[in-house]
């Protein structure tokens, strides 16, 4: 599975992702200045999700991995999403 797919990503692509990550970091900072109320945290977390998604898919090669690894990662992420989501039953309605 992992041994079979030694996928090499070009410098151009890696640099592009890096640039995108920098832009998204800037967006994270900028969003704190907008008055979005409770949606501010949704926005910030969405940007964080996109960023970590890029890192996992490209830098950590998950995009080129087999199905089993992807499913395992997916299970962990869904669990985390549920934990965070359930915490918001409290935070959003206080």
């Amino acid at each position: 599975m992992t041994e079979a797919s030694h996928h090499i990503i070009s410098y151009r692509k890696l640099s592009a992702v890096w640039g995108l990550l920098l832009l998204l970091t800037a967006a994270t900072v900028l969003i704190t200045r907008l008055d979005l109320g409770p949606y501010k945290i949704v926005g910030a977390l969405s940007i964080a999700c996109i960023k970590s998604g890029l890192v996992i898919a490209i830098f950590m090669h998950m995009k080129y991995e087999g199905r089993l690894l992807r499913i395992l990662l997916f299970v962990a992420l869904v669990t985390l999403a549920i934990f965070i989501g359930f915490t918001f039953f409290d935070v959003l309605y206080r």
Partner: protein
Amino acid sequence: MNPSDNLHPASGSFWNDTGKSGISSWIFSTDHKRIGLLYFWSVLSFFLVAVVLGLLLRIELMAPGRTIMGPETYNALFTVHGAVMVFLFIIPGFPGAFGNLVMPIQIGARDVSFPRLNLFSWWLYMIGAAVIIIALFTGGGPPDTGWTFYVPFSARTGTNVSVAVFGVFIVGFSSIVTGVNFVTTIHRLRAPGMSWDRLPLFVWSLYATAWVQILATPILGITLVLIIAERVLGVGLFDPMKGGDPVMYQHLFWIYSHPAVYIMILPAMGVISEIIPVFSRKPVFGYKMIAFSSIAIAAAGSLVWGHHMFTSGISDRAILIFSFLTFVVAIPSAIKVFNWVSTLYRGSISLEAPMLYALSFILLFSIGGLTGLILGAAATDIHVHDTHFVVGHFHYVIFGGSGFALFGAMHYWLPKFYGRKYAEKPALIAWALLFVGFNITYFSMMVLGMKGMPRRYYDYLPEFAPLNLVSTMGSWILAVGLVLMLVNLIRGLRSGEPVGNNPWGGATLEWTIPSPPPTENFSEEPVVTHGPYDFSKAGKP
């Protein structure tokens, strides 16, 4: 290291068939049985230390006012009692000790998937334990926060919280590593014919537990690191003055620590599911539902952590949802209880020591579980929150449940690994003392809580004095029973009557191989042709 080292002349058993000798044949062994015994004796040692602390706490509460210690010492003692019992005894107790000993044999494997990782997990456990012990005697002294390390107190107290929390962090990794190992082993190393519907129920329960260990423990790790960040760097994550939220700490802590009680109780339920059919000479009732309910408890139980926080100022909507989900967990738990009772129905019951522990488990766990619903219902929780009722409830689940199941497992499985058996009569007397002492100690606590006695105070109002005295007396009966049980068990393992392959007439794979088992478990790979509780195909005791 081990009381019965070198006592087994039987050649070819895992006791003497190794390349190494002395202590290094234990602490560097990758044999799952040796690691299981390492875990067992380490866990038992910490248990005894924490028992002594618990007895001291009970002596302090024997009479109002200062009895043997002041408030600071009392705070430190209940913290260390709780932290050692939870993190060093009961969480590693089942997977580390009996999971390692029994699970690979039950699925027909020679060892776990990653034997070295397995040894590493024991080392992590011991290193973490050592760090926790260091924390007790250095810096500002033992932590006094309670085992929950709640902020803001844990961020401010001058006691040695950072080091203790770091120790727990390391122990957490040992738990994750064991979980990864067990999931892989159960998926990949089952013998031919060992399909998922032939898996012994103890293995099913360990499988569900392993997933909880993998998915929930990292959150404990993160939470503990955040406490250290708060104490050392003052980042203010939990400090409202700096824009933080102290309730957020409680969310993070209980996201792990509630599922952690299922790490403690699920394998215990698995042990009970093994013992009851064997001592009823009857196939387990509702095999699939018991297996499924383990998974259901692990899944639903991971979503109920908010019920620890009903009085912490969380939103009403969250209280409603977490309260509802708490009641949902009662369903798969009740499925198990009803299935055990149905297994007993018209069985050919023999009341030997393991069975007595299993039967008392059903009663004590049911009391513990149902009093949990009193706490899970928001309206009643507000009255009994942080009273001795909680202490009583928790001990009914974890001591009356997990503890008694562990004692049952010790009587049921240790003869397999030592090739010798304890004496039956003292075992029955010890069980009776434990059962009576247990109920006197903890039922009194629940009554005291209902009357309004708060927990975690070294002193109380005079009207609580009589029942506190009763509870302390009960703890002494409990202690006598415990000593008798251990002395009888250890004497039996050293010099008791030798046992054959199958002393109980069980139908799972561990009873098909010699006692003690050979290093490689099976001389040739077993082929499984019947279910784990099909006694018509198993040998007679």
